[in-house]
Structure formats: structure tokens, C-alpha cells
């Protein structure tokens, strides 16, 4: 019996869920990278996970409230679609999801009660995940939940949270909800809380939908590595730097073809099948910051560009400016430029520029004919004898006009 390998308590939990040690370590490596650490930190993450999950099994779960604002539930769906049993579901079990409109089994008054209790009893010690845009329109009545404006729900839950995770581009700055004409007054969580004077730190995780692994990475940072929000490595836009620090283009699997000058000009073409670069089809990879090409999607199966679709820049979101939402900034997706809006008229910058340049060129041709007709093409018209102004103001004349003047060749060295 002494030579028999023993299985740890944690490993038993893993195998009970059909997760191999190997796939668990793979996830830990990914979480470490997503959290901005080296893959070498995987054991540290694994250890933190183990103790957390074991702690969780003993009833010490970190409470999370997941509120949906003006959302399509896509971010929840993406998160829920993590295949079960999957290594990532273990991570799910490190938190206690006390309130989620979609994932919770309960509904109605009892759920609202559970939320209120969490806010009250775990003040300063829970995470608020907010999905979807904040709607300020019509005095906050653009969105009503449980007989209250949606904004009130956010305010109450955010005020005593340890950290707010704005999940998805809508939560970051209104997303496509904030696109013109934005009648519902959509804006992002960070901007709304700032306006309301709520100082709870916000971590922005854009995407449409946000990759669930990004949320896992943030949860791992806060819950497992016990990092204070101020210790998180965030960009100037409050996004995790390890995830949103580089462009999609930087880590794209088709990048080699970009460098070679091998491009796809048409969907369904031979070039597309060869995996050439999608740049001419309006790919927003070079200007969109996210590590999609590294973490992939759907349990690391594929991602937009691998599937043959150019990046449409869904992670572009400036938290302080609902007008700078990814739909407004990137449509039409398959053109290299966005459309500019002049009133109700949408126009490509190239059309304006070429139009003006064309008009100018035509005007110069017409002007050229004028110069020809007036006989100015051979050295120009004859000079005025006296400046027009000088002729009218002889007492203050600029020039000294004297027909008897001769060139001072000596002085000028002729």
C-alpha cells in the first residue's frame, strides 16, 4: 500500500467532474497569462485555485452579483456556454453567484431579496459583474427591473462592492446601445458611477460578447490572487493590460501573410481558403486591442479570424465616451474606413476627399484656360506700375517709383 500513489482531495474533485489534471493545468497556464503573468506562474494559480476550491467546498465562496442592464445576455450566454464539465467550471465554483437574472435557478422576489442581503451582509466584500449598457434615458425609466429604474440597481449594488467588472462593450461605454441616435441615453458603468460619485473601482472587460476567459482572469486576480483593485495591471482605459495591451493584429495567426503581402480581396476566394490576411476586407485587427488570437473562443476552438471573418473591432470601447462605441467607430465593417455622419447622410472619408480634390483639379484646369485667354502664360501679366494702394495713398506710398531709376548693378554684384 505504501507504493500506491495517493490522490489529493482536489484531484478527486476534478476527476469527479471529469476533468483531467492535464487540462486543469492548461487552464491555470491560460489564466496566468490572461492575468498578465508568465505561464510559469501556472503552479501558483493552480495552488490558489486548489485552496480556493477546497475552501469553497467548506462554504467560503466569494460572493458575486451579476446584474444585466440593457443587454442581449450574450455575455452571460458566452460564459454559460463553457462546456461542462470543463476545467473552467471549476473556476466558476470558486464564486458564489448570489444573483444572476439568467443563471440563477430562482427568480422574482426571492432573488431580489438574495441580492439585497448580499449587498448588506457582504458590503465591501463582493464582486459586481455588470453586463449591458446603463440607460439614463427618460429619467432612468428606459430600463426598469423589479419595479425600479435599472440605474438604481446599479448604484445600490456598485456602492458597496469591492470591485465592479463592466463585462462586455455595452457595459464599458454603452456599446452598440450608445450608437447614434442613442435615444435611451446609453453609457458605460465607469462613466455613470463617476457621475454619481461612486468611487468603487471598475475593471473594464470589453468585447461583444466578452470572452469568458477574460472574466475568469479578472476573477482569478481578485478572488484567487487576492489582488486589491489598485494592484491590478490596468490600461489607461481601466482594461486588464495583459488582455487589452496589444492589438489583435500583433498576435494574429494570419500576420505572416500580411507581412508577405498575401491578402484576401473577396469572401469565398481561394486566398481566403489559404488563410491569407483579411486586411483589405476591412479587418480592424491593427487598431483593436485584445488578445483574441491568443485565447481564442468557444473553449479555445477557433476565433473570428481563424473562421475567415475580419476582426470588426468589438473590443474597441473608450469608457468615458459612449460616442466612441465600437459600432459607431467601425461600421461599415468591410470597408477600411468608418462612415462619417453628416446629418442623416453617411459618407466614406475617401468620397469626400476625392470629391474635393477632383473639384479643385477641375477648377485649376478651368483657371488655366483663363490664364491662356488673358495671355498670362508667357511670364504672367505685365506688372502694375504702381501698387494699387500706393496710387490711392501717395503720401504713405510703400514703393518709391521713379522712371529714372536704374538697377544698382555694382551693389548687387551683377
Amino acid at each position, binding site marked *: 500500500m505504501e507504493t500506491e500513489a495517493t490522490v489529493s482531495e482536489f484531484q478527486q474533485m476534478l476527476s469527479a467532474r471529469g476533468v483531467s489534471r492535464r487540462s486543469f493545468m492548461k487552464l491555470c497556464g491560460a489564466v496566468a497569462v490572461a492575468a498578465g503573468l508568465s505561464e510559469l506562474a501556472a503552479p501558483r494559480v493552480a495552488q490558489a485555485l486548489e485552496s480556493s476550491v477546497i475552501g469553497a467546498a467548506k462554504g467560503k465562496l466569494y460572493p458575486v452579483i451579476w446584474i444585466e442592464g440593457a443587454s442581449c445576455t450574450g455575455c452571460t450566454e458566452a460564459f454559460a456556454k463553457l462546456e461542462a464539465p470543463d476545467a473552467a467550471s471549476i473556476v466558476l465554483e470558486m464564486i458564489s453567484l448570489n444573483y444572476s437574472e439568467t443563471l440563477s435557478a430562482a427568480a422574482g422576489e426571492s432573488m431580489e431579496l438574495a441580492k439585497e442581503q448580499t449587498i448588506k451582509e457582504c458590503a465591501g466584500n463582493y464582486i459586481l459583474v455588470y453586463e449591458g449598457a446603463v440607460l439614463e434615458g427618460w429619467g432612468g425609466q428606459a430600463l426598469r427591473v423589479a419595479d425600479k429604474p435599472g440605474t438604481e440597481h446599479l448604484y445600490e449594488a456598485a456602492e458597496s462592492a469591492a470591485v465592479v467588472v463592466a463585462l462586455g462593450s455595452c457595459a464599458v461605454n454603452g456599446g452598440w446601445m450608445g450608437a447614434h441616435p442613442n435615444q435611451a441615453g446609453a453609457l458605460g458603468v465607469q462613466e455613470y458611477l463617476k457621475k454619481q460619485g461612486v468611487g468603487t473601482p471598475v475593471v473594464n472587460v470589453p468585447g461583444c460578447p466578452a470572452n469568458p476567459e477574460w472574466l475568469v482572469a479578472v476573477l482569478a486576480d481578485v478572488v484567487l490572487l487576492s489582488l486589491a483593485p489598485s494592484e491590478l495591471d490596468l490600461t489607461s482605459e481601466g482594461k486588464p493590460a495583459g488582455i487589452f495591451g496589444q492589438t489583435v493584429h500583433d498576435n494574429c495567426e494570419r500576420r505572416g501573410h500580411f507581412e508577405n503581402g498575401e491578402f484576401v480581396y473577396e469572401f469565398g476566394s481561394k486566398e481566403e481558403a489559404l488563410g491569407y490576411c483579411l486586411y483589405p476586407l476591412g479587418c480592424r485587427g491593427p*487598431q483593436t486591442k485584445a488578445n483574441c488570437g491568443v485565447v481564442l473562443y468557444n473553449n479555445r476552438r477557433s476565433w473570428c479570424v481563424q473562421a475567415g471573418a475580419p476582426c470588426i473591432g468589438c473590443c474597441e470601447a*473608450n469608457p468615458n465616451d459612449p460616442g466612441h462605441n465600437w459600432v459607431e467607430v467601425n461600421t461599415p465593417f468591410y470597408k477600411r474606413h468608418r462612415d462619417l455622419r453628416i446629418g442623416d447622410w453617411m459618407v466614406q472619408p475617401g468620397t469626400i476627399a476625392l470629391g474635393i480634390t477632383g473639384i479643385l483639379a477641375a477648377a485649376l484646369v478651368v483657371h488655366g484656360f483663363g490664364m491662356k485667354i488673358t495671355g498670362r502664360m508667357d511670364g*504672367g*501679366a505685365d506688372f502694375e506700375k504702381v501698387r494699387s494702394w500706393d496710387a490711392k495713398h501717395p503720401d504713405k506710398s510703400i514703393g*518709391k517709383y521713379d522712371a529714372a*531709376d536704374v538697377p544698382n548693378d555694382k551693389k548687387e554684384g551683377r
Partner: protein
Amino acid sequence: MAHLAHYREAHPMPFVITHWINLVAMILLIVTGFCIHFPFWPYFMGIARGVHVFCGFVLFINCIARVVMAFFVKSSPTGGTRVQVTDYKTWLPQADNRHQGIHWIRYYLFLKKDHPLSAKLGVPQKISYLAIPVLIIVMFYTGLALWNPTMNLGFFAAGTDLVGGLMSMRIIHYFMMYIFICFMLIHVYLANIEGISPTLLMFFHKEHGGLVYDPEKHAIVGEDDLKH
């Protein structure tokens, strides 16, 4: 022959060189810029990007050098004279320019028959040339805000934030290229429509006889046929 004599003193050699560099760099920047915006010639993309970045730096450094040289190199304050002053003075308002702005515009709109007297640079010309270094510097800035190795530096990232993201920055960079194209169209047209002597002087230092202008009297005082 109504134009002033074209003397080398108007465009001393250092400025002939900077003008050549401007021309070559701008043409290459525009051609490669179009290719980067949309890869019309796919296999040229890699070269286009390298040339674009290189020429961007060349144009910027050349611009700074030209502005600095304006304070050390001498050039003629007007056409038709070999007298020289420190170059920067020919960029400031001169007595020869005074009250002439409106008449230049009237001349080009065919509302004035005779040619306005002026300094080496006419009023609209002086104003548009002065805008060029500003344009080059702003263009260089927008370019570096889009160039991956520099886009994340605070100085450039702040500008990108200010204009509403990289797409806006790209469109500004793109529109500014057209400002350069429009400037070049007008510049080439006006420099050559009354004869190519100014071009021969600017590029090849080839002189051409003409009327003589006295920058002290601010008037035409005779003619120099360069003893042809």
C-alpha cells in the same frame, strides 16, 4: 517678358536640396500611403510600409532642418535682385507685401489685369507655405500615433484618446494627405502656369533674365537680360 529676373540668390543651394527632399519624400509617402490604406499591389505592402515610415522621418527631419536654416542661411527678400537677407525675414510680412493680399486674389480671379508687385513670396503664397511645416509636424504626429512601436507612448496615446480612437486618427491622417495633395496641385500649377523659369531655378539653379526689382525702393527699376 513681364516677370522678374530669376536669380540663384532667391533659392540658395541648401534650400534647393531641402525642396528636392520634400518632393521625393512627399511623393513616396503619398504613393505608399495609398498602398497601406488599401493594398492595391499586394506584394508591395511590406516595402510600402518600410518606405512610408522611413520617408515620414526624412520629411520631418528635413522640415526641422529647413526651419532652423532659415535663421542662418541668406536668401533674396524679393525676386529680381541678388541682394540677400537672413532667410527667416522673407517669411515675415515685408513692406513689399503690404496691402497686396487682396490684389493677389483679385489678380487670380481675373478681377485685376496687371500683375501685383510683391516680395519673393506673395501674400497667399506666404501664408500657405507657412502652414506647411505645421502640417508636416501634425502629420508626423498622427503618423506616429498610428505606428505600432510608438502608438502606446503617452504623448501619442493621449492624442488618440482626444480625437476618439485610432479610426478617427487614421481618418485625420488620411484627410491631411489630401491637404498635401491639394497643396501640391495648386503649388505646381501656380509655379508653372506663367512659365517654367521658377521651376528651373528651384530644381536646377538655372537663372533666367527679367525685370530688376529694388528691395529698398520696393519697385521695379530696370531690366537684366543676363547678357544673353
